[in-house]
């Protein structure tokens, strides 16, 4: 996540759009940019977790059985991030909804909002996955993907968290694989690893292969979502090519 911050600080107008998908070595709490670290005291299961502060806004996330993504968009004339935040959220989240629906999940974009502008930020739940913002991805009552942004004169950074399975640190928050599919028919499934993940819903943790499979799905879905906003010739790159 520090790499994302470094990329935003150094981004130049001639850089490509950068997509990153990553996991964390150990369960870690990331706070939204303006959140108070003291607020985690009210959540006993979160007190002992290592924590970081994101440059992006929103609520706290437990990075455990999830994938974190970042999208960096340099500021330039064809900037697909210009203006409201919502179109970029919608483009990426809609791509995830399409993908998940094709795999049998009844995913949809949230229309509700827990945010309060009249009473201040303290009325919002501490955890991102307990909040609801327009275009969050939900399945029934469960939020399984949320995103947040930071804008600067040089570019825009969007972070997101794709919750795959409930964490022991937040046992009340279901991940994608803890939710039921709308249909038991798997004929739309093209990837064996997804079928495996679904059939082993009682497992507490995802295997390396499963995680890697979800990583690949997240990357291809992010590319599809971004391609709705701007034409991009994607290629695998190295961070050392940029900074």
């Amino acid at each position, binding site marked *: 996540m520090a790499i994302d911050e470094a990329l935003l600080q150094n981004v130049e107008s001639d850089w490509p759009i950068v997509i990153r998908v990553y996991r964390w070595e150990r369960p870690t709490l990331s706070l939204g940019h*303006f959140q108070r670290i003291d607020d985690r005291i009210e959540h006993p299961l979160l007190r002992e977790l290592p924590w970081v502060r994101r440059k*992006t806004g929103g609520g706290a996330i437990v990075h455990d059985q999830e994938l974190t993504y970042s999208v960096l968009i340099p500021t330039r004339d064809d900037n697909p991030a210009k*203006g409201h*935040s919502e179109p970029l959220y919608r483009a990426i989240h809609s791509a995830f909804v399409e993908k998940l629906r094709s795999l049998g999940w009844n995913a949809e974009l949230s229309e509700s909002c827990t945010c*309060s502008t009249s009473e201040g*930020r303290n009325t919002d739940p501490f955890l991102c996955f307990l909040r609801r913002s327009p275009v969050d991805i939900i399945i029934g009552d469960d939020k399984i993907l949320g995103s947040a942004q930071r804008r600067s*004169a040089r570019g825009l950074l969007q972070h997101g968290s794709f919750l795959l399975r409930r964490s022991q640190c937040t046992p009340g928050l279901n991940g994608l694989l803890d939710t039921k599919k709308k249909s038991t028919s798997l004929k739309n499934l093209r990837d064996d690893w997804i079928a495996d993940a679904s059939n082993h819903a009682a497992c507490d943790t995802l295997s390396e292969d499963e995680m890697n499979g979800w990583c690949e799905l997240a990357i291809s879905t992010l590319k599809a979502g971004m391609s709705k906003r701007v034409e991009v010739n994607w290629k695998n790159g190295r961070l050392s090519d940029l900074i």
Partner: protein
Amino acid sequence: MSITPEKLKYCNSHEWAYVADVSTGIATIGISAFAVEELTDLVFMALPKVGQTVTAGGEFGEVESVKAVSPMYSPVSGTVVDIHSALVDKLETLTVDPYNEGWIIKVKMSDPTELDRLLDWETYKKQCSH
């Protein structure tokens, strides 16, 4: 007297500056109605401290809308002499009246000629329409 947007000078990044009395060298700074609309629902604002120096084009604070954090850039250089601390707890003021009750900081300018580099209302309006 009410400040109207035609009387202000603007940055490309949507902050405005207004000098009520040139002899004081103090500029009042805020963000435009266009910026407030683009940001949508504002939930948090971080302001500088009185006495802090700011530079033209440099960040003086941050504002968080619903899950997007954006910096605010100073139109002029100088020293912060006043901050609108009550605004932080009543950000909806920016939606209602961004040019009067929604002022954010006041800066004692170190170089008032920097105002000449800012956009006038007509130019700023054109930029926003693109």
